[in-house]
């Protein structure tokens, strides 16, 4: 869920609750104040009746035009009430000709020797209108506020958060080795400026480390080339000796094999750095079918000797890539399919206009699909290989936008590439 949506959702709920509560309390409070007021009025009438009686010695008549309805009811002595009794009642309103809410005061009054129970009722019309008004005003306020809130969010918040989204966008396109293209927009918001600074620092640090590591790999590989050359040349001089015993020959042969492995590993590491350095950027439209046919020709002898049968179904396909990288890709794929095959196994190559699939028989054990393309991953410790072949393939796929996939089914390993 987006930050805005989340924020808006919580805010809306809180706002509605607060408005309802405030509407309710306004209503109750106003109601309370008005009733107190009305009770004051009713007490005033009570006092006026008492004053009137004291002055004229008779009870005042209820005026027909007054909205108060006053009734006198003689009650037997001994039923005096202690004070005024206020109640809310529903009774018939003469004026409106219907049942209506009234506030009434009941008290007993000693007029000479007679005891009267006096009831004065005043209609609550005002309150009725008031509550309706409060309800309407509250609803209108809620709606207006929500509307204003949403509009503000849309315009103001989006504008306020814009630097954040810009930074987010920049980070999304962040790629090690390309930090030059990374620009965080300048902002006057302190928090965002701080965030941008931190992000900038972190990415610069990552870039620096990455470059250092790359440089290290590159330099180490280069520095290794010379001693490797020396060792190999010395061994090649050594075997010119006619008097080498079989045992010594054996030793030299192992040394040769180890040198070969080491120099191959070195070359692979160099190649990986070169690919990630984008040193192969001569892109061309490559007719893949013809390329594969050439490659098949190159590998034919190798396969014949190891008794591997190869079948291929090739349809014309064009891939936009560096020719050298495609060559390396095919070499690695074909080498892998041969090296990790079973004796007298087979290799199947299928080329469709936008997909290349190579499958081969092999150990009946699926490779870990998540790690198969990572550096130095070896399925079942095939010591003859350095485990960089597939990682080179992956790197090539990354720079040529091919999608690699690995699958194991029916005792066959499938490597497919689509573009």
């Amino acid at each position, binding site marked *: 869920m987006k930050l805005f949506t989340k924020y808006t959702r919580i805010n809306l709920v809180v706002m509605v609750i607060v408005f309802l509560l405030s509407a309710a309390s306004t209503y109750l409070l106003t109601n309370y104040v008005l009733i107190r007021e009305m009770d004051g009025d009713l007490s005033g009438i009570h006092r006026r009746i008492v004053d009137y009686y004291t002055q004229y010695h008779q009870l005042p008549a209820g005026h027909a035009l007054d909205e108060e309805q006053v009734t006198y009811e003689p009650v037997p002595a001994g039923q005096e009430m202690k004070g005024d009794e206020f109640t809310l009642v529903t009774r018939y309103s003469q004026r409106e000709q219907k049942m209506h809410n009234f506030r009434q005061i009941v008290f007993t009054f000693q007029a000479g020797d007679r005891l009267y129970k006096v009831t004065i009722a005043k209609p609550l019309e005002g309150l009725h209108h008031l509550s309706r008004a409060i309800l309407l005003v509250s609803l209108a306020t809620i709606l207006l506020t929500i509307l204003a809130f949403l509009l503000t969010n849309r315009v103001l918040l989006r504008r306020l958060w814009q630097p954040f989204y810009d930074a987010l966008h920049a980070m999304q396109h962040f790629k090690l080795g390309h930090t030059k293209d990374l620009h965080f927009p300048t902002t006057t918001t302190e928090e965002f400026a701080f965030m941008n600074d931190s992000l900038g620092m972190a990415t610069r640090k990552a870039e620096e480390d990455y470059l250092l590591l790359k440089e290290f790999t590159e330099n180490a590989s280069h520095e290794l*080339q*010379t001693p*490797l*050359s020396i060792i*190999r040349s010395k061994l090649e*001089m050594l075997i010119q000796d006619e008097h080498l015993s079989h045992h010594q020959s054996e030793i030299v042969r192992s040394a040769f094999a180890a040198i070969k492995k080491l120099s191959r590993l070195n070359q692979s590491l160099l190649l990986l750095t070169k690919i990630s350095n984008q040193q192969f950027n001569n892109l061309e439209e490559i007719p893949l079918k013809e390329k594969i046919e050439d490659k098949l020709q190159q590998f034919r002898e190798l396969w*014949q000797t190891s008794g591997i049968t190869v079948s291929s179904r090739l349809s014309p396909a064009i891939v936009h890539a560096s020719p050298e990288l495609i060559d390396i890709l095919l070499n690695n794929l074909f080498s892998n399919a041969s090296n990790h095959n079973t004796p007298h196994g087979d290799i199947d190559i299928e080329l469709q206009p936008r997909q290349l699939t190579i499958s081969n028989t092999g150990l009946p054990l699926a490779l870990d699909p998540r790690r198969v393309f990572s550096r130095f991953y070896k399925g079942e410790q095939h010591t003859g290989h350095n485990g960089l072949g597939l990682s080179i393939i992956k790197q090539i796929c990354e720079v040529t936008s091919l999608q690699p996939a690995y699958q194991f089914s029916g005792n066959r390993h499938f490597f497919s590439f689509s573009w």
Partner: protein
Amino acid sequence: MKILIIEDQQELSDSIRAYLSHENFTCETATDYYAALEKIHLYDYACIILDINLPHGNGLTILQELKSDNKADGVLIISARNSLDDKVLGLNLGADDYLTKPFHMPELAARVAAIIRRKSFEGRNRIVLDKLSLDLQEKIVKGANGRADLTKKEYDLLVYFIANKNKVITKEAIVEHLWGDSIDMADNYDFIYTHIKNLRKKLLQAGCPDYIRAVYGMGYKFSTAEGRKS
């Protein structure tokens, strides 16, 4: 014929000199930029083996110097930098070939031999060795009994052997020469056996003695009768 080895690593320079020196070649060495400049100005060489990274200067500058002097010396660049740009740059500056470290000595010898042949026998590209004669232009091989019909791989193999006459060549070096180093093959080089066997058979049929000898556990050695005696 003189060969100049410009390489700052004494050890490697020594190996190259020892490997290439035989009846026809004398090797001189230079281990830094100024020594190399001095030598190329003073003498003419059939081939110069040039390392790019040198103390006090760059090998490519030496190459430029050589070309501005209008010298006809063949140049083989050997470099630790297997970068396409370096390769293209070197070849554009007039180098004849480019070899990446670490290389096999027989490969270096074959490249040097090819450069010298191109430079010295313009057009008349022939190798005559014992009973064998090769027309490098037409790629025709003849023995005492006439023509030997070789496949492309067998022919390449023969030229490679001749450039490394009397030297033990590892199977690994042969594989790399014939198939390139891009094919990552298992440590099984049996498949070159077929090519060697066929080449031997065809040369015998063409009336040549058996020049190729297997060296136990190691590889092969090509030598003519007089070579074997020495």
